[in-house]
């Protein structure tokens, strides 16, 4: 992995500073740049270069030590929490935080699975390509369940921004008209199979 920094020290003045290079930070920086703002992105994790820093990319299963699984000893030592993530495998484990090097505690009687991905691109490197909109049920879940405070915004505030992002990303799916799973801006469907 690359430990180099892109900028060591700089006296440049920026119009906008984006903290974090994950999905949200990446989008924020894209919007700023496109609107002509001189933008600085800060990321505490290491640099990840396309291709050269993806050791699991394109490796067939028979070349993986345990054919996509990760051995007990390594899981126990470094990935006790991270292994709970659905995206954790031999081909992705280097993009997860090391639980031994970054320990944390939770209050007694509570638990929290802190899945971490400190690197350029953040958890976007672990994204398994599914994109669902949150619905009004999600934004109001706290009050509906009787715990805490709702989000300060609702679905209708975010809906146009979902559309803005989806048209760029390209999302496949079919309109279902379900209140609990609002429809996205969908790409045209794939071609049909011949009967």
């Amino acid at each position, binding site marked *: 992995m690359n430990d180099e920094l892109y900028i060591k020290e700089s006296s440049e003045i920026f119009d906008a500073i984006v903290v974090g290079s994950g999905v949200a930070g990446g989008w924020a920086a894209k919007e700023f740049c496109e609107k002509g703002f001189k933008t600085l992105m800060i990321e505490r994790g290491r640099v990840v270069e396309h291709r050269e820093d993806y*050791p*699991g990319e*394109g*490796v*067939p*299963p*028979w*070349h*993986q*030590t*345990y*054919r*996509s*699984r*990760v*051995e*007990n*000893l390594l899981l126990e030592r470094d990935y006790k929490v991270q292994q709970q993530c659905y995206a954790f*495998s*031999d*081909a992705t484990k*280097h993009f997860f935080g090391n639980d031994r090097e970054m320990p944390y505690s939770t209050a007694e009687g509570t638990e929290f699975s802190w899945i971490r991905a400190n690197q350029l691109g953040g958890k976007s490197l672990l994204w398994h390509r599914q994109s669902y909109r949150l619905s009004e049920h999600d934004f109001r879940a706290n009050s509906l369940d009787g715990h805490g405070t709702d989000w300060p915004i609702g679905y209708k505030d975010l809906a146009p921004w979902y559309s803005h992002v989806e048209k760029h990303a390209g999302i496949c799916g079919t309109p279902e008209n379900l209140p609990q799973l609002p429809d996205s801006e969908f790409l045209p469907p*794939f*071609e*049909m*199979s*011949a009967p």
Partner: protein
Amino acid sequence: MNDQYDKTSLQPDNWSRRRFFTRLSAVVGIAAAVQLLGGEAISTALAYSPQPDSASSDGKLFRQQQMQILRDICAQVIPQTATPGAAEVDTHGFIDNQLFHCYGTTEQQQVKSILAKIERISSQRYGQAFQAVDQAQQLVLLEELEKPADGFSQQDRENFKFLKGQIVFGYYTSEVGASEELVYLAMPGGFKGSIPYKSIGKAWGSMRSYY
């Protein structure tokens, strides 16, 4: 990308790489060896390599006799056809290695327990060890294991189901299973709605199938 994994890469070159890595890691430690050689070289050097004769000695988890039963079960579950079957690609050796490194005692015990049960039923019924009876009798016994029949319990069926999962996983993630029995392409590219089956003649293997 696919070209770099042609079959010749598993031949002598790779053996020397494995030997080299084993020695290097013995001298400088695995972490340092990883830094020196890079991830891909290490994973290839450490990946389980099919052995021609794993059933002739004790494994990491199983005794030799258990390895023989396991080999014969592999041969029954995915037999040799035009392509080598599960026993030919040493799925039994792979399972021994995989269970040892990647599973807990519960799963290890599941497999040990069903091997013992198969052995016992075989002795009762045929008066011989499972690996000594003929293949037709082996098949009858394994088929009975699948249905509520005398001698086998629901727990036995669950244990056998787990073992079959390991055999299927081991075979279809082996080079032969993934790239000869199935078709393998590291980066498949676009979607085509209709492809005549006869233009391929087999199913596709992909990483996601293995989870």
